[in-house]
């Protein structure tokens, strides 16, 4: 198993406030890696650095390297737009484009990037909706508004939309926080299935979710990487006392 993403000495700032301190970790391919930690520990900032979305905020700064298949995505000649086509993202609150149909939402990434061939779009839309386990529920209503779906379905639509551009990595920022438990469980099962074809990195404030869903877990605290290991080890026998305290609920 190889490392899809290598993070080397990554630090990030919002203006003068440093939010990430010298993070170094290697993320394996085709597994689910979870990032956990109390509020404000920098986990969302960390994944937003992986697809170069952190820098969109005014005053944001990043130093360090992030290697995708060995190449630094922050190097001078790399266009952030191409990085984001290889590393997709799903957000906490489902955000389908409100004025587009389910079909158009799924195909949005492709259409906005110039793909016009109807045939190819049809194919990819179906493939993506199937991969997001949403096809059977919407196949007869592809023209309906994306916003007319339930919360869980909307999130799966957003996942389908992200899958349609055929990324290699999928970042998920607390993907089930805004959903009810049943919908959340469906997404968790979906995440495990997705890991077979993609490298999935998920941020979650729900430790039990990280325990269920991930193969590797990273624990962040106040911007530092405290511990990183297999989920089994982290949850049965963490090496750091801080990790133990967080996991057993003593703080956070």
């Amino acid at each position, binding site marked *: 198993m190889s490392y899809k993403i290598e993070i080397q000495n990554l630090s990030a700032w919002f203006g003068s406030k440093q939010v990430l301190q010298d993070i170094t970790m290697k993320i394996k391919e085709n597994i689910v890696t979870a990032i956990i930690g109390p509020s404000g520990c920098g986990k969302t900032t960390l994944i937003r650095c992986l*697809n170069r979305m952190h820098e969109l905020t005014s005053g944001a700064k990043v130093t360090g390297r992030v290697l995708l298949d060995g190449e630094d995505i922050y190097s001078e000649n790399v266009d952030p737009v191409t990085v984001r086509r290889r590393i997709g*993202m799903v*957000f906490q609150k489902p*955000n*389908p484009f409100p004025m587009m149909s389910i079909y158009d939402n799924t195909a949005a990434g492709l259409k*906005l990037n110039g793909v016009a061939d109807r045939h190819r779009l049809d194919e990819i839309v179906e493939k993506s909706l199937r991969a997001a386990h949403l096809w059977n529920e919407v196949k007869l209503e592809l023209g309906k508004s994306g*916003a007319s779906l339930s919360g869980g379905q909307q999130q799966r639509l957003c996942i389908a*939309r*992200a899958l349609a551009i055929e990324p290699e990595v999928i970042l998920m920022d607390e993907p089930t926080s805004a959903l009810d438990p049943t919908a959340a469980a469906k997404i968790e099962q979906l995440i495990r299935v997705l890991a077979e074809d993609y490298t999935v990195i998920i941020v979650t404030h729900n430790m039990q979710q990280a325990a269920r869903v991930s193969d590797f877990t990273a624990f962040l605290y106040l911007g530092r990487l405290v511990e990183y290991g297999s989920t089994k080890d982290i949850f049965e026998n963490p090496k750091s006392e801080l990790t133990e305290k967080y996991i057993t609920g003593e703080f956070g």
Partner: protein
Amino acid sequence: MRSYRFRKLQNRIMISLAYVALIIALIPLASILIETINRGLSAMSFSLLFEEIPPLGQPGGGIGPAIQGTLIVVALASIMGIPIGVFSGIYLAEFRQSHIASVARFLNDVLTNVPSIVLGIFGWALIVVAIGWSVIAGAVALAIMMIPIVTRTTEEAIKLVPMTIREAAIALGVPQWKTTLTVVLSSAKKGIATGILLAVARISGETAPLLLTILGSRFWFNGFTQPTAALPLAIFNFSQSPFRAVDLPRAWGASLILIFIVLAINIIVRYATKEKYG
């Protein structure tokens, strides 16, 4: 218990006051509409709409050229003003922090409050002096009037588009400029259309700039570099004419038509930007 009843009474008094205020506010509006519709309808006829403007006091004829003139000048002004206004609004919304943006925003706000007659003089000095009383001069003056309104409302409409929609598009690998021009603009289109409507409705009824630019005429449209008639001017002239019996009804008719045009624009634009999914 006593204070509860007192509070209920207070509540009722407040609500009643609010209602009364509302009615008072609506009275002028209602009476304008009612008067205009009443008197305008009685002056309405086929010939009113389609015949040439007769000299003051002469019966017969209509205000056809005025209708045509208004439509042409407003259309030309819109063609010039809307794109400039919308793109300025987009610029201000997207480059919020830049120095140019702050300066531009300030100038924009000032321009919104410039008296329309000043814009008229500007149009006169710029164009009439060069090429004479003309439709172009009028359109330019009205366009300058339109731009700040459209710019401001476009900027607001775009600012209202939630960050989540932008982020969703950017995360799909869509460059920022494309995100703005497609997804963001699409989301904001209702707001932008409303702004445009406001602006168009506003300029349709402006009289002062037209006085100093298109001059007015009794005849049909004759070329962009020639003067032309317009409804506000027609209303002004007819209502001030000494031949009240003949001309006043024409003024009311013109008023009704003007209101009708604005209403029609309203409905058309709302329909065109109707959200497919309400």
